[in-house]
């Protein structure tokens, strides 16, 4: 007979929708609205799992998320296996495949249960004591054996194919728990018009009201009142079912885990499986209810033993009788309701066993009137039954009662877990979690907590119940379980106290009580009471262990969210395509490691590229270099304080190598400082330090030297860079430079000129020691220039060759030769310290005794005596092949130019050791090396410049704009390029600039002004972004015409950003998948603009209409941002568009 324990009628299940599912090897039937637990009980399945340590048979204890025993694995196909799910929370759906856990070979006949016989030898702390020595045994023997015997479900072995999402949300009131109190709080808050989020971990709102068909509220049966109340909530209330509030974090940020698809047999393809909500709440109303406590007595863990209220829930909500013959054991009035209701449903109730001396009150009398025997001041002394309880023995030692069900109630514990994490933020508790048991009072208090007048509710049908008392302690017994999930008994607690552990935190760690996946929801208070009895203390003085997130387990997929695969971290891409390169990721950029020809190895390609630069001409994509424009009358003074050199002596048109120190005197970065005009510098930084250097400079400008009239603008993405290096470089370049005499350009100079028709900044410098140029040009034109030069037989070289070429010249590479503890003098760059220019950052530290010691690590060269040998970077350098380290290898390569291996190293007193032989110890033996100067390849003589006739550039190739996946409710498009100016100015100059360009620069933070076709966006108190149609060529000159007494900085950044538009009713929602700002129109009105983060990309977000946003994205991050927004749009994709178009 199918579902023999299903009642004939009643419950919230849909009996018209039968559902077939499997548990282990059995196929079973249930109904829509069932949980796995209720469906198993309907089918008389009570043995559901084996316990963690002793493999004891276990059943279903509860009807909610507190369940410690009924953990199962749900298999949704390859990679979609989830272990340790609570059967009480798994919604039944067609095809659900669940299996029991921790049994060998089967649930009914478990070999591991033999360990149960050995339970006396597995006391708490046994791991620490038994397996201490020898250590190797632990790894080889004990751990595998224990892992095999103990444990719960197994982690899936395959990658998770599901999607997971994050969502940032803001609300005035977050209500956690959608039972009676939570719904009433929502009614109260909704009436005030507040933005409300109401979440509940269950599939349906209503909590215990769904199990109370006999209770009426304002004349409605309780389950119907729930539906009516929810329907009456206003639009400002967001309902989130299947959503667990799992943790509270600073700033009233609450983490919610929402399960979206696991309950569906056929989820929509674009739908994420789970969504993690980051809710920033004005205030929180906690309506999490209370959890019934089990009673602790010997043998209290057999299948068939259940919390009394859970039995009522199964009966009234799911239409399931949990057994045929029940014994109720209680210390609380509420269990009498279970006795009466089960009796009325036709379940024989053999006895009520009450721990209290004189149970009285209406609930007790109602049971007594049914003729059910009540044993007062009594408890259970033992139970029997191999796979399900078949009898109980009372503590009098004589009375044995046959039964298949034992219902327990030790009273109720308020669910204060999250409140304990709230750190004094604005939280209110209502309902059972505030200790209120009277329903009308719950409802009244909750409406008031919601913000309205206290509501009055007519509640009928509930007997008056006495409040729960503290439980009575149980005697130590090896089978009286306190913590079911971790198999901890009262005797284990006694053992721990006997060994001297008396703090609740120590008891927890020593016995592992409360440390299982259920976090001790049902064991918490019973532990405290048992401990208090052992150490003869008042239980109220013991205290709680720390409540930590998550409240219930959260999947790794949900935590990771969208940060997987391409969206794990943005990889910035250069405007120069390098399809034929071996790519590598460096400092967040995709770079070209080398450009091998067909069949060529990386080593061979690198050697060829190096030789081409030394003997002919090579070019590298150096677009990733950091670039900063430094503008203002005090720019040179500022640079003098930031870098070690003297830039007041640098003439316009000159550039100079520069070292940047920290205040501690150690080298942080290097680069080139070029003076474009008296008040205008173009500075480069290393790729990896671009953000740091700008931050460091801003720090000193804003807080250290606030009087200086200087402004900084990042132009890293405004300029692509082609490094053209080698003896033939001038000859290659000259035919494309129409407006300057290349041969007349001295070393370390800079010119603003043209490459064909492309405006460029041309630097006569390089990182290879060869004659060479760095061509700074607009990214849109970079590919064209690159392809043109390539056609002139210039060899492309990658980062690998770049490193070798610079190391051959003894040039340092920041982060390789430097590690934050290296001075300029250590690097042999003491000459770069300008001693007589006045104070600068780091100068004072240079005279500290530690920084002037003769035995400091100094940069030298090392040549292995065996020429073919290439040392390992990071290898130690010693005198004798062992003993104290003298330093380490910082860079090591094979040089094609030298035909041998060579290295740079930091060696103690290195410069005094030149010529000495040292040894580099390696696992295969010490390698003998000779200390040398750090310059291996002498700087070549200049080749005479031979002018050649002009040549044309290749034509520009248009790149198609990316096309977004169709989604009517949230459209995404790339906008046409625009003219963009970065303006940095004080108030007076800002007004003047606004007048000059015809759009006032707003002074209100994060607001924009639009005038004619121009817009000015406030980005900071001295910073604006000006937008105008593409080709507004005169605008920059207009803006620069500020009066001399009110200097300012105006920099063309048209190339730096590309704009995207996202529009439609779901636009804000999709942005909030990656952006943590509150995008409600009241918080982020039309016209608001700000820099912010979208995922991990810094963007400028601008609301230009109610449902229209513009996003200015740094061009190297466009593919990342585009992919983020496409991912967020996927759940709204039009039906026809299941294919994923390529991102641009």
């Amino acid at each position, binding site marked *: 007979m199918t579902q023999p324990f299903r009642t004939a009628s009643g419950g919230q299940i849909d009996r018209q929708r039968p559902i077939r599912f499997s548990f282990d090897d059995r196929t079973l039937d249930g109904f829509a609205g069932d949980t796995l637990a209720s469906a198993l009980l309907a089918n008389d399945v009570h043995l559901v799992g084996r316990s963690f340590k002793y493999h004891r048979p276990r059943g279903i204890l509860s009807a909610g998320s507190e369940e410690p025993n009924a953990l199962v694995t749900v298999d949704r196909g390859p990679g979609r296996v989830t272990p340790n799910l609570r059967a009480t929370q798994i919604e039944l759906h067609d095809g659900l495949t669940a299996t029991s856990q921790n049994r060998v070979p089967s649930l009914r006949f478990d070999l591991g249960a033999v360990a149960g016989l050995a339970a006396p030898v597995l006391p708490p702390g046994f791991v620490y004591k038994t397996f201490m020595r020898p250590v190797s045994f632990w790894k080889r023997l004990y751990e595998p054996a224990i892992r095999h015997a103990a444990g719960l479900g197994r982690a899936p072995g395959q990658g998770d194919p599901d999607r997971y999402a994050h969502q940032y949300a803001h609300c005035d009131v977050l209500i956690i728990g959608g039972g009676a109190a939570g719904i009433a709080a929502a009614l109260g808050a909704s009436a005030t018009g507040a933005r409300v989020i109401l979440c509940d971990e269950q599939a349906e709102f209503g909590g215990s009201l769904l199990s109370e068909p006999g209770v009426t509220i304002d004349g409605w049966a309780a389950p119907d009142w729930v539906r009516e109340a929810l329907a009456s909530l206003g639009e400002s209330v967001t309902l989130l079912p299947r959503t667990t509030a799992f943790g509270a974090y600073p*700033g009233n940020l609450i983490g919610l885990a929402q399960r979206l698809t696991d309950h569906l047999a056929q989820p929509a393809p674009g739908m994420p499986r789970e969504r993690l909500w980051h809710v920033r709440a004005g205030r929180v109303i906690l309506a999490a209810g209370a959890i019934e406590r089990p009673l602790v007595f010997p043998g209290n863990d057999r299948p068939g033993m259940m919390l009394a209220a859970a039995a009522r829930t199964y009966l009234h909500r799911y239409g399931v009788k949990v057994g045929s013959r029940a014994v109720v054991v209680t210390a609380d009035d509420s269990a009498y309701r279970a006795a009466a209701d089960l009796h009325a449903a036709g379940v024989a109730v053999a006895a009520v066993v009450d721990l209290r001396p004189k149970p009285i009150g209406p609930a007790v009398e109602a049971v007594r009137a049914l003729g059910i025997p009540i044993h007062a001041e009594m408890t259970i002394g033992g139970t029997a039954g191999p796979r399900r309880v078949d009898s109980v023995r009372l503590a009098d030692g004589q009375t044995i009662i046959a039964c298949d069900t034992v219902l327990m109630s030790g009273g109720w514990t308020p669910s204060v877990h999250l409140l304990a994490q709230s750190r004094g933020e604005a939280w209110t508790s209502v309902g059972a979690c505030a200790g209120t048991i009277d329903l009308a009072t719950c409802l009244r208090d909750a409406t008031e907590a919601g913000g309205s007048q206290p509501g009055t509710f007519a509640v009928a049908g509930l007997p008056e119940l006495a409040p729960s008392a503290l439980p009575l302690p149980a005697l130590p017994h090896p089978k009286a379980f306190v913590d079911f999930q971790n198999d901890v008994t009262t005797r284990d607690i006694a053992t721990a106290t006997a060994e001297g552990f008396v703090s609740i935190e120590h008891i927890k760690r020593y016995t592992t009580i409360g440390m299982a996946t259920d976090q001790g929801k049902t064991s918490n208070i019973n532990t405290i009471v048992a401990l208090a009895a052992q150490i003869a203390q008042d239980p109220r003085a013991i205290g709680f262990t720390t409540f930590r997130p998550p409240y219930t387990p959260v999947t790794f997929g949900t935590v990771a969210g969208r940060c997987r695969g391409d969206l794990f971290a943005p990889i910035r891409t250069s405007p120069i395509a390098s399809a034929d390169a071996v790519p590598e990721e460096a400092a967040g950029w995709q770079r070209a490691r080398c450009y091998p020809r067909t069949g060529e190895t990386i080593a061979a390609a690198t050697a060829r590229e190096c030789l081409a630069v030394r003997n002919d001409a090579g070019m590298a994509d150096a677009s990733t270099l950091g670039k900063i424009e430094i503008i203002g009358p005090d720019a040179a003074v500022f640079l003098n304080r930031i870098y070690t050199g003297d830039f007041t002596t640098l003439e316009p048109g000159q550039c100079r190598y520069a070292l940047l120190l920290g*205040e501690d005197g150690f080298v942080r970065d290097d680069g080139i400082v070029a003076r474009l005009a008296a008040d205008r510098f173009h500075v480069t930084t290393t790729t990896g330090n671009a953000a740091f250097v700008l931050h460091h400079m*801003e720090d000193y400008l804003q807080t250290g030297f606030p009087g200086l009239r200087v402004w900084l603008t990042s132009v890293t993405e405004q300029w692509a860079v082609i490094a053209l290096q080698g003896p033939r470089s001038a000859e290659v370049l000259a035919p494309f430079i129409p407006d300057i005499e290349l041969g007349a350009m001295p070393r370390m100079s800079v010119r603003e000129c043209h490459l064909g028709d492309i405006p460029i900044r041309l630097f006569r410098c390089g990182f290879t020691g060869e004659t060479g140029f760095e061509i700074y040009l607009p990214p849109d034109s970079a590919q064209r220039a690159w392809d043109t030069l390539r056609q002139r037989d210039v060899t492309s070289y990658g980062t690998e060759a770049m490193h070798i070429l610079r190391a051959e010249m003894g040039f340092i590479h920041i982060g390789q030769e430097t590690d934050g503890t290296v001075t300029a003098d250590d690097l042999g760059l003491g000459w770069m310290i300008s001693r007589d220019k006045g104070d600068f950052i780091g*100068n*004072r530290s240079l005279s500290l005794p530690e920084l002037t010691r003769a035995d400091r690590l100094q940069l030298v060269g090392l040549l292995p005596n065996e020429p073919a040998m290439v040392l390992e970077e990071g290898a130690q350098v010693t005198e004798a092949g062992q003993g104290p380290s003298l330093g380490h290898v910082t860079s090591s390569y094979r040089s094609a130019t030298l035909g041998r291996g060579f290295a740079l190293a930091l060696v103690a007193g290195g410069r005094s050791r030149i010529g000495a032989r040292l040894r580099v110890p390696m696992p295969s033996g010490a390698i003998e090396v000779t200390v040398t100067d750090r310059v291996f390849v002498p700087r070549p003589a200049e080749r005479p410049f031979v002018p050649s006739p002009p040549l044309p550039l290749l034509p520009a190739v248009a790149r198609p704009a990316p096309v977004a996946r169709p989604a009517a409710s949230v459209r995404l498009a790339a906008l046409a390029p625009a003219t963009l100016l970065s303006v940095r100015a004080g108030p007076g100059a800002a007004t003047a600039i606004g007048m000059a360009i015809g759009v006032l620069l707003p002074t209100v933070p994060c607001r924009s002004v639009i005038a004619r076709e121009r817009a000015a966006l406030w*980005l900071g108190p001295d910073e604006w972004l000006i937008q105008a149609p593409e080709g507004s060529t005169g605008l920059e000159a207009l803006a620069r015409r500020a009066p001399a007494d009110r200097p300012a900085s105006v920099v063309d950044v048209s190339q730096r950003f590309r704009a995207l538009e996202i529009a439609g009713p779901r636009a804000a929602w999709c942005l909030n998948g990656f952006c943590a700002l509150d995008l409600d129109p009241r918080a982020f009105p039309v016209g608001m603009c700000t820099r912010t983060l979208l995922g991990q990309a810094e963007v400028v977000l601008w609301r230009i209409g109610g449902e229209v946003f513009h996003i200015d994205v740094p061009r190297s991050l466009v593919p990342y941002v585009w992919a983020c927004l496409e991912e967020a749009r996927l759940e709204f994709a039009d039906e026809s568009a299941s294919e994923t178009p390529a991102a641009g």
Partner: protein
Amino acid sequence: MLLIPCPWCGPRPENEFRYGGQAHLARPEDPAAVDDAAWGDYLYTRDNPKGRHAERWRHLHGCGRFFNCIRDTVTDRIAGTYKPAEAPPI
């Protein structure tokens, strides 16, 4: 994630900010006049209070400004933020 009130932009999520260490450490006017021990203190010695702490933050991915913040290191609650030249709130 903290919610930090930028003195210019208002409350913003912590991921837009960058921490800047202890506040109100003035760089000596003339570092050459400071002895080694005092300079070492300026470089490396910092308060580590349990409770109220004045610290610098920068609204890096926002308006870009440095400002000061009074944060309780135990509760993470922020008593207030203020511009570099301003006095701390009581």
